[in-house]
């Protein structure tokens, strides 16, 4: 059994495998598949609670992942944002010196969440400009 705490390196290796088998398009196709089959709880929460669904979803996942972050919601303005100061997943990949992470690893978040949120009437913007330091920012806005 692979422990859930070893999942991030396993995930990165899966992206590398898909890239070897079918190139970047195969990796992206998997991200879209994952979004549609695995992120049903985010979809259900946002469908039921509107933008507060984002708050409810990430309140659990980011705490379980022991992330270092600030999360904000303005329901009247329809804006939700995560300022990630230390992403536990990317941080883990940067720390494990004996493995080579998938170079485009961080972009899976952008594809996964966009795929769920845009059809529900939200825009989803991900700033990955500092992801080489395990930092990023996600902003979701009601259209």
């Amino acid at each position, binding site marked *: *059994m*692979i*422990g*859930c*705490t*070893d*999942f*991030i*390196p*396993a*995930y990165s*290796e*899966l992206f590398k*495998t*898909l890239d070897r*088998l*079918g190139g970047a398009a*195969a990796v992206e196709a*998997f991200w879209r*598949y*994952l979004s549609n*089959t*695995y992120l049903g709880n985010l979809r259900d929460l946002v469908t039921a609670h509107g933008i507060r669904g984002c*708050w409810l979803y990430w*309140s659990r*996942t*980011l*705490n*379980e*992942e*022991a*992330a*270092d*972050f*600030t*999360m*904000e*919601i*303005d*329901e*009247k303005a329809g804006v939700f944002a995560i300022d990630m100061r*230390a992403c*536990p997943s990317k941080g883990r990949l940067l720390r*494990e010196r*004996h*493995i080579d992470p998938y170079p485009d690893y961080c972009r899976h978040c952008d594809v996964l969440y966009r795929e769920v949120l845009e059809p529900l009437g939200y825009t989803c913007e991900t700033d990955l400009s500092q992801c080489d330091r395990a930092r990023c920012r996600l902003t979701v806005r009601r259209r």
Partner: protein
Amino acid sequence: MKERIERRAADNAYFHPDFHGALSCGIEYLDAQYGTEAVRGYLRTFARTYYAPLREALRARGLAALKDHFEALYRAEGGEAAFALTADELVIRVEACPAVRHMRARGYPVARLFHETTRTVNEALCEGTPYAAELAAYDPETGRGVQRFYRRAPAAAAEEEGAS
């Protein structure tokens, strides 16, 4: 309503069992798109690279290194597992696999080849060492099973260590 929360990494323990569901999803996808050998190849590569320090410990310390690794793993995940270690054999009897249990409880589909996360990974851990692995029993419904690691016959061990 406006709200804001701030968390430091030290505020929480790192434990997100839903990741088992994401891994299962990845295995199912790889199986459907590229077949069984792609799944085994992926898990073998992952185990050989990511668990390289554990494989090194297996060479240096023998099966006690694997016992320490799996005891810590099943303890952290709340799994029920019994360990029997001798000089030449380690048997792990898993009563309930925590990954399968979590996926069943949360309604995540369990991939057809999810057992390869045990079988292929264990076999890869032993590559290039005097030891071999077999998944002696496995119930896909619960993940209950028996994992066995054992010392290869001397000629096979020499050949394996030479090949790696």
